[in-house]
């Protein structure tokens, strides 16, 4: 059952000298209920704070297109470029803060849950501008909602400009509306399908193409207004009613409340409970979790009326979550975070990372390891399958990072013979202990400890 070191690794971001380990499941839940200290200590601006900047970027783009050739065009181009460059710094800032929270916050469980839900609700748009503020979407739609009802989290996501743009909902118009009949406008089923397939019921859930289509029609009206963010535009909304999974929604004048109702029902669907329980257990425990664990989690979630805290508590209190043998491979981002944590890199070293340092030591390595920062290939996010991470090319990326980056972050490396004990604790196995002292130099000794299976799995 509960084991503090295991808890810190499996449900947190790892252990480190000087940071307290969780004492029991209740204390982990208490920390989660308490105010979000890490968000205050390492703040990230929310998406809405960028709206005026986004609008300014758009205006600069328009000005550039309108500028008469010659000096004016050159000046407009310069202004746009410099604004874009400045805007891209938000990506660097977001990454730095996410790293710092994971590496230094006491409550690693909150960070892990934030990352889990951020991936579950992937909105990895390639739209320039929006691409730089993925962290701001997470900060606004995900992080504040991970300790409440799942319906609230889902609602925050499906009404968020980032998701609406990513899955094309903002341009989807009801086919029988005046707008929808215009050339180039009409229905788009992208978001509706992914809500059913990925966000709620799961692909094994009991929905059909007709449900996708009906939900797509119901979702029309959810859109984005330049400079102001989310809005419900009734003129785009298909007049109801819509029949989804056997229940009728809407009818009469289109209202945001009709959509809300459907989202509430989808969030509370038994298939959703099963899907979320399975995914969470796979993420935290093992690729093949104990069916008793997932059944218990789904049951507790449904009984609580869709409360995420009940889902997490069920996970932490079930013996199926505490197998002492670490099974899951640590994904690349989590590996970097737990390495920095274990190395007790000073906070200042992370705060002062330049954009170039981050590119070399963070963005580029994550890409080689197979997990480009907040940019999975599709709306299904990064793989939950260990096989996706334990690949030759991925491990080559990890080995290179483990052997070179710690000394860049720390200046002077700890003695590998001490580090092997502080990083792995009682889990340190004789082979790694031996390797740490047999290495040719400190950098390789540290790298070997970070590459040991005990550090690579949790």
């Amino acid at each position: 059952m509960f084991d503090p070191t295991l808890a810190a690794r499996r449900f947190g971001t790892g252990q480190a000298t000087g940071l307290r380990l969780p004492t029991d499941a209740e204390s982990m839940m208490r920390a989660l209920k308490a105010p979000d200290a890490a968000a205050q200590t390492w703040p990230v601006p929310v998406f809405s704070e960028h709206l005026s900047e986004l609008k300014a970027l758009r205006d600069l783009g328009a000005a550039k297109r309108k500028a008469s050739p010659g000096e004016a065009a050159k000046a407009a181009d310069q202004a746009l470029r410099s604004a874009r460059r400045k805007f891209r710094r938000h990506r660097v800032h977001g990454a730095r803060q996410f790293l710092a929270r994971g590496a230094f916050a006491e409550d690693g469980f909150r960070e892990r849950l934030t990352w889990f839900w951020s991936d579950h609700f992937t909105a990895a748009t390639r739209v320039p501008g929006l691409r730089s503020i993925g962290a701001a979407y997470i900060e606004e739609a995900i992080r504040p909602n991970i300790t409440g009802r799942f319906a609230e989290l889902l609602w925050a996501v499906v009404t968020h400009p980032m998701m609406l743009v990513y899955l094309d909902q903002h341009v989807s118009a009801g086919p029988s509306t005046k707008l929808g009949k215009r050339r180039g406008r009409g229905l788009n089923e992208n978001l509706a399908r992914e809500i059913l397939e990925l966000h709620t019921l799961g692909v094994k859930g009991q929905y059909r193409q007709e449900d996708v289509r009906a939900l797509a029609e119901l979702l029309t009206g959810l859109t984005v207004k330049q400079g102001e963010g989310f809005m419900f535009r009734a003129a785009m909304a298909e007049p109801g009613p819509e029949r989804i999974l056997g229940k009728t929604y809407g009818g009469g004048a289109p209202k945001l409340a009709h959509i809300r109702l459907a989202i509430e029902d989808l969030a509370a669907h038994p298939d959703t409970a099963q899907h979320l329980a399975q995914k969470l257990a796979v993420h935290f425990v093992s690729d093949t979790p104990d069916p008793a664990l997932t059944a218990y989690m789904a049951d507790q979630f449904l009984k609580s009326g869709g409360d995420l805290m009940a889902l997490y508590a069920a996970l932490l209190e079930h013996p199926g979550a505490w197998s002492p043998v670490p099974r899951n491979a640590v994904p690349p981002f989590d590996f970097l975070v737990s390495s920095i944590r274990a190395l007790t890199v000073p906070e200042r070293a992370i705060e002062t990372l330049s954009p170039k340092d981050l590119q070399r030591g963070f963005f580029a390595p994550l890409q080689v390891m197979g997990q480009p920062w907040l940019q999975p290939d599709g709306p299904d996010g990064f793989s939950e399958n260990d096989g996706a991470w334990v690949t030759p090319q991925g491990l080559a990326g990890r080995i290179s990072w483990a052997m070179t980056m710690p000394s860049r972050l720390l200046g002077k490396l700890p003695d590998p013979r001490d580090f092997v004990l502080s990083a792995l604790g009682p889990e340190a196995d004789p082979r790694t202990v031996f390797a740490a002292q047999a290495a040719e130099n400190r950098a390789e000794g540290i790298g070997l400890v970070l590459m040991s299976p005990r550090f690579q799995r949790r």
Partner: protein
Amino acid sequence: MDRRVFLKSSLVGCSLAASPLLTPVSFAAAPWDTRLVVIILRGGMDGLDAVRPVGDKNFASVRQRVMREDGPDLNGFYALHPALSPLMPLWKAGELSMAQAVSTPYRDKRSHFDGQDILEAGTPDLNGQGVRDGWLNRLLQNVPGVTAETSFAIGREALLITKGKAPVSEWSPDARLNLSPQAEQLLGLISEADPAIHSAMDEALRIAQLVDFAKEDAEQAKAMAAMDTAMESAMTQTGRAGRGEHVDIARFAALRLREETRIATFSLGGWDTHRNQATSLATALGRLSETILTLKAGLGSVWEKTAVLAMTEFGRTVRENGTAGTDHGTGGAMFMAGGAVRGRQVLGTWPGLDEADLYAGRDLMPTRDVRSYAAWAMRDLMGIEKSTLERAIFPGLEMGAQPQVIL
């Protein structure tokens, strides 16, 4: 005392000599001499827009907004998407063909992720259990003399299509590994108790020996220069330079295929064109075309014995959606390129676009299993028995009549 001697002689419970990390790279004669490249187009390529049935009476009316300009004519009935114009010299040289109205056995739920799993597994369904291995791996399981060099899965993602018992090399062109011999040995030692990590590390070190990165970088620079010349016409047509991850992958694949490697596979994304398809599909097709041209340029004379198959998880809706794009559908298209391919043909029975011709009233009706073309290609390229193809590699497939994919 020399550390390595110590390491070998006295370590309790660990036998370094038995570690696969010390096994030298072995070269064996490849089981055949032809080359196969399989490209997975992730996201559902719109086959109707890529290989346009402009001769169909309904086509112009169902596709009004996604087609911004006409592309080159193929045979009077079909025309190519304009972004694929750089491939026209291949078509004319008899090195490019397509198959229209193909699909995997996957139906109705239209999930990318299940669709791709079925495409790569090569099975009729997912059996509810998740698939164990991919069809390229089962191919390798059924031929003698296969080594890890025979097949390369390229890119950062782990591909299901090559997953399985037979050895396959995996690498990403941007991965580098330079370690001291001591660190290599110790990595082998610490991972001994974890077979999955151990074997992936072993593979990483083996490939790091196989691929001389300094030489690789020089070769790539050279290939890049050659490519730039070869692609000048392409670039003027698409207005884009041949740069990017897809080009790196294709170049790496070509370098491997010039050596021991017989099969290379990788994926290209960007096909999920729900919106502004005129722009987004042009980008994706431009990449596909650059990828094929890079392979050709990089392979040199090996191109003559190469077949490239590009396939996708499903096609898209026949009618455009409301946002100048298309949604997930069923029947789609497939590309075949290379000197070993019988070119200048659009294969497949055209199902028509009348309301009654469509699948579920919305999608192009598939008229042939996409696996059948892949199966015939493998039979004619490598001499794989039909019975092996229909039972082991693509279980449940009936290959049907010979479509003449390969010369």
